[in-house]
């Protein structure tokens, strides 16, 4: 393998030991490094401080030379060179102005750069191209017993992390482990060494070097392994200053390539070890025990003649100003004047707010006075007001389908910036609409009956409230819930803010009302798998998963659980977020509804990995006795139901904190998520409400970090709305249960609801510390004795204007709310859309928050966006009201845009398989296709496919569309 090699000024100067060790090591592994001919200084960080463009040009010359050499890849061992070359490459691709400057400068010396050369780091090549195994095989003198603190520094992981993780890189760790070394846990592996500050501002720089040495020494490292010549220089050459200020804390610093050379048995003199100011001497010593503390890898339309002046067509045209929304960009009087001159138009007006009552009355008056037989309104999106105007037209005595609407707001004034262009476009759109309106036909309205039964998907507080409301109104409700019990997230909370009511106490009465209501059929442990049909007539398939317990026979006595073969509960308990344990046969929580146990086939001894083996003694069945409720032969069932409306209330998923490894969840045992803490402080939780940490300690100081997975472009941009309030609640509960010092770290306090600000006051009075500063990371490396053994929060207290270090025992992450992982699949089931954030999309954010774009399907609660319990309940009521509105009316008016077969159908049958609603059939008698109007949904697929144009569609006739095309493009003829 042959690579171009870019040493950089440092590897020829103060960092020559790096080159001296790297070259023979690479050669030993069969990699030939060819030094780039006539390379120049990359500019490092110093040039960037003077002139960015020139700095990039300097680096680009080397990239151009590398390309010219034809060797494809350029290896840059020096971390600063690696960063600068990569940064230049990024700038070259992302900023055209910079590319132009680079091209120009290179051309001045007869060079050019195409942008392709890969810049690689030796660690990348060693691990990914050569491979750990090949390296392991070359080891002749394993570094057994050598304890190494791997130090990566800044520049190979920030801001671009290409071959390794940004927060917890492990490439060097894995490499050195393959050589037999022991890697000590070193939390400062990516902390800055101070760079050039050791020379220019020693007060700061020397201290930063000291911090690195001190921590390595405390962790028992024999040496620090680096990848950067400047880091090595800082850590090595300034040993005298560090010693004189801070004492005997210095640890020898070597390049990883030097360690590799030693392990390969290469002669020491060749590896440049003699060049270190602090000598590194190592002989293998018997290790007491080598424990590997590897960083965790974290887990992303014929020629139509011009419309003749037809005295029968009398069109009334209205263009709406919509206040400033349209008028600011479109000259409405001009449009009205233009349209007034078009053939067929007898009346053309511009008006401030067409959708208002006076606007609608104006239409009705004009229809009567001017005997209009067509009406066109140019205003906002038809999705908003088409029905408003159709109703107004109908009230004026005209068939509502003789009305046509043009969008000059969402498609024109709101998306363009040139007034002239926008007005010209509005005229074109209006002209097209006039032509189309000329061809409009009067159509009868379609009535579709509504099935009074309702499906509610999701048994959290939203689903429960909606179901109860509908049931009280006398409607039959199917409530389908995925978990074995209803209750959702609210059932897991301890108390609710701001009243500190016990969540279970206010929820369980509703849950049991659901369980016992005659109008509600509760199907828990079930999913919706298919939805067919349309508003008023949905056919839904529900899959009921096997609990291996007959719901009708189980009384919830739980004697089976007591009698299980497993004497002790052994398996992580889902309800308690894994903090507690349960047996294979279990009930989710004491107040579960339905009060029925279930068996987990993955861990029950009577199964093997989910498949029934029937090998267990089945002591549970014994305990059940005469009730005979346990049934190991139970199978999955798919049931079909008919409903008229659907309410989707599937709730949220808490943000997965493993996506933010810098907060330490999983690395440190005493970092918790908010939901885990809810269970911890709950009297029926795994610790009976005592605040006992995973390692058994009781905390004396607790930090609550706000905005984890919220208000962050790297994870979720939105504010999750409830976290400030629940963080305050948890602060109160934790303080009450443990007496610890509480610290809340926030960016802003959001307390908008009733009693919320007062709650914040109360927390302040209780002595909870609120510090305005977003926490960047949680670490365990101590600077002073008081921090030993604690988790340290380093934060800028922005209001006090100081940077603080606060040691705590427990960290609570206020996780944000996200859509469920399968939100996309669920929304397809119900024919809904999701917004950009992934929550289900409402029809209108202000005026229709519980409706979707699919008639008959409603959403409520957190599945639509993060919200607290009062708002969720309000939405659930709203959704129930919308459903009731449909049901009580008994029918819905549908757009009559059905398709129909014309007489000249040739019977080719191409249309028949196309219809997704199987509305087209072949009539053998006539030899033609025939459409069942009741089934036709008006999608138009058959119309567009018919080879002889023998299918027409009401409201979207071919001639209407062609006339619209002609109207839009008339200016070009």
């Amino acid at each position, binding site marked *: 393998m042959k690579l171009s090699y870019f040493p950089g000024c440092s590897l020829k100067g103060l960092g020559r030991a790096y080159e001296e060790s790297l070259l023979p090591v690479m050669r030993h592994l069969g990699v030939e490094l060819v030094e780039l001919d006539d390379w120049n200084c990359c500019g490092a960080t110093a040039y960037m401080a003077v002139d960015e463009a020139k700095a990039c040009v300097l680096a680009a010359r080397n990239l151009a030379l590398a390309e010219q050499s034809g060797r494809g890849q350029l290896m840059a061992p020096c971390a600063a060179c690696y960063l600068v070359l990569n940064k230049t490459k990024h700038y070259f691709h992302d900023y055209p102005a910079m590319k132009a400057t680079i091209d120009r400068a290179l051309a001045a010396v007869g060079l050019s750069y195409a942008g392709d050369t890969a810049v690689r780091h030796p660690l990348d090549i060693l691990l990914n191209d050569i491979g750990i195994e090949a390296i392991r095989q070359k080891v002749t003198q394993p570094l057994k017993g050598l304890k190494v603190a791997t130090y990566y520094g800044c520049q190979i992981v920030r801001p671009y992390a290409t071959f390794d993780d940004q927060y917890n890189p492990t490439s060097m760790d894995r490499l050195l482990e393959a050589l037999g070394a022991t890697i000590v846990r070193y939390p400062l592996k990516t902390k800055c060494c101070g760079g050039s500050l050791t020379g220019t501002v020693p007060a700061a720089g020397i201290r930063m070097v000291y911090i690195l040495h001190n921590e390595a020494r405390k962790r028992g490292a024999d040496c620090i392994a680096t990848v950067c010549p400047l880091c090595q220089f800082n850590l090595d050459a300034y040993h005298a200053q560090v010693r004189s200020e801070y004492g005997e804390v210095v640890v020898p610093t070597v390049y990883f390539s030097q360690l590799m050379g030693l392990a390969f048995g290469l002669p020491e003199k060749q590896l440049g070890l003699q060049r270190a100011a602090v000598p590194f001497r190592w002989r293998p010593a018997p290790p007491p025990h080598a424990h590997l503390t590897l960083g965790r890898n974290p887990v992303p*339309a014929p020629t139509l003649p011009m419309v003749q002046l037809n005295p029968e067509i009398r069109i009334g045209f209205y263009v709406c100003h919509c206040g400033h929304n349209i008028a600011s960009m479109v000259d409405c009087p001009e449009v009205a004047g233009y349209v007034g001159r078009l053939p067929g138009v007898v009346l053309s007006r511009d008006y401030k707010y067409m959708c208002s009552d006076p606007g609608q009355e104006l239409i009705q008056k004009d229809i009567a006075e001017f005997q209009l037989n067509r009406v066109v309104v140019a205003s906002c999106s*038809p999705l908003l007001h088409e029905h408003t105007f159709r109703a107004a037209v109908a009230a004026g005595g005209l068939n509502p389908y003789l009305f046509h609407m043009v*969008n000059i707001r*969402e*498609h024109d004034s*709101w*998306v*363009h*910036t*040139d007034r002239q*262009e*926008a007005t*010209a*476009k509005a005229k*074109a*759109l209006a002209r*097209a609409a006039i032509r189309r309106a000329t061809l409009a036909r009067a159509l009868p309205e379609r009535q579709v009956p509504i099935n009074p039964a309702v499906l509610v998907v999701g048994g959290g507080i939203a689903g429960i409230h909606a179901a109860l409301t509908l049931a009280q109104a006398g409607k039959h409700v199917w409530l389908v819930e995925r978990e074995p019990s209803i209750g959702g997230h609210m059932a897991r909370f301890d108390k609710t803010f701001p009243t500190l009511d016990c969540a279970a106490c206010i929820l369980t009465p509703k849950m049991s009302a659901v369980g016992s209501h005659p109008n509600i059929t509760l199907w828990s442990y079930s999913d919706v798998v298919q939805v067919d049909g349309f508003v008023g007539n949905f056919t839904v398939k529900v899959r009921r998963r096997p609990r291996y317990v007959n719901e009708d026979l189980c009384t919830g006595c739980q004697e089976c659980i007591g009698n299980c073969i497993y004497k002790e509960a052994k398996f992580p308990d889902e309800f308690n977020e894994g903090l507690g344990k349960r047996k294979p046969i279990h009930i989710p929580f004491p107040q579960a509804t339905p009060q029925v146990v279930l068996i987990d086939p993955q861990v029950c001894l009577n199964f093997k990995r989910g498949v029934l083996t029937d090998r267990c003694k089945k002591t549970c069945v014994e305990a059940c006795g005469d009730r005979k409720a346990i049934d190991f032969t139970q199978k999955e069932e798919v049931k079909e139901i008919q409903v008229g409306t659907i309410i989707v209330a599937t709730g949220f998923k808490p943000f997965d904190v493993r996506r933010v490894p810098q907060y330490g969840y999983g690395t440190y045992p005493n970092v918790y998520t908010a939901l885990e803490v809810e269970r911890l402080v709950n009297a029926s939780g795994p610790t009976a409400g005592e605040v006992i940490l995973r390692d058994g300690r009781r905390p004396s100081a607790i930090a609550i970090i706000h905005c984890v997975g919220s208000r962050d472009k790297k994870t979720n941009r939105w504010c999750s709305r409830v976290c400030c309030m629940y963080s305050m609640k948890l602060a109160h509960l934790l303080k009450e249960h443990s007496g610890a010092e509480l610290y809340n770290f926030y960016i802003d306090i959001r307390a908008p609801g009733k009693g919320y600000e007062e709650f914040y006051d109360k927390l302040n009075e209780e002595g909870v510390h609120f510090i305005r500063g977003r926490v960047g990371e949680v670490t365990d490396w101590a600077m002073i004795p008081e921090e030993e053994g604690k988790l340290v929060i380093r934060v800028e207290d922005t209001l006090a204007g100081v940077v603080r270090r606060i040691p705590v025992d427990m960290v609570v992450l206020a996780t944000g709310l996200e859509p469920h992982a399968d939100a996309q699949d669920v929304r*397809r089931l119900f*024919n809904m*859309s*999701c*917004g*950009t954030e992934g929550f289900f*999309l409402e029809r209108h954010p202000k005026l229709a928050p519980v409706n979707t*774009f*699919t008639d008959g399907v409603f959403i409520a609660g957190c599945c639509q966006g993060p919200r607290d319990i009062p708002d969720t309940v309000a939405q659930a009521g709203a959704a129930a009201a919308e459903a009731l509105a449909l049901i009580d009316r008994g029918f819905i008016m549908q757009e009559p*845009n059905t398709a129909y077969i014309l007489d000249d159908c040739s019977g080719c049958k191409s249309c028949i398989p*196309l219809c*997704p*609603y199987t509305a087209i059939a072949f009539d053998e008698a006539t030899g033609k296709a025939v459409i069942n109007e009741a089934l036709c*949904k*008006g*999608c*138009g*697929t058959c*119309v*567009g*496919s018919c080879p002889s*144009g023998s299918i027409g*569609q009401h409201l*979207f006739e*071919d001639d209407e*569309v*062609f006339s*619209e*095309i*002609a109207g*839009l*493009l*008339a200016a*070009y*003829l």
Partner: protein
Amino acid sequence: MSRLKYAPNVRVIRLMCSGRVDPQFILEALRRGADGVLIGGCHPGDCHYVEGNYKMLRRYRLLQRMLGDLGIAAPRVRLEWISAAEGERVKSVINEMTRQLQALGPLDLPGKFTDWDQEVIALAREAQAKVAAETEAEVAHV
């Protein structure tokens, strides 16, 4: 709703499903002077009417081949899957297509048809004149 701005040279026709789009609509638009036609449909799997967008895709593929034979550059007729929440996508697709069409230049089919008509008329006159001249020569010979 996001009010992201894009180029103003787009004229919109609203249909209820991309499945309704007849290839003749596209040809008619080009014939009447459009430089390009953009069809926006729901993403595969998301069609409100189940499968209309797939049918559109099939027609579109066939149409592309035909347009190729007619010498109309492929970027002029484009099918994009855009959903309700993708304001950013609408903007970038329209701006990109505008740039491509500007690079290709105007299609101007009406102009071309007029030119070809003139050509045909000129040819016809030429042929007539030739026949007349030959007939004249024959008569004179006799």
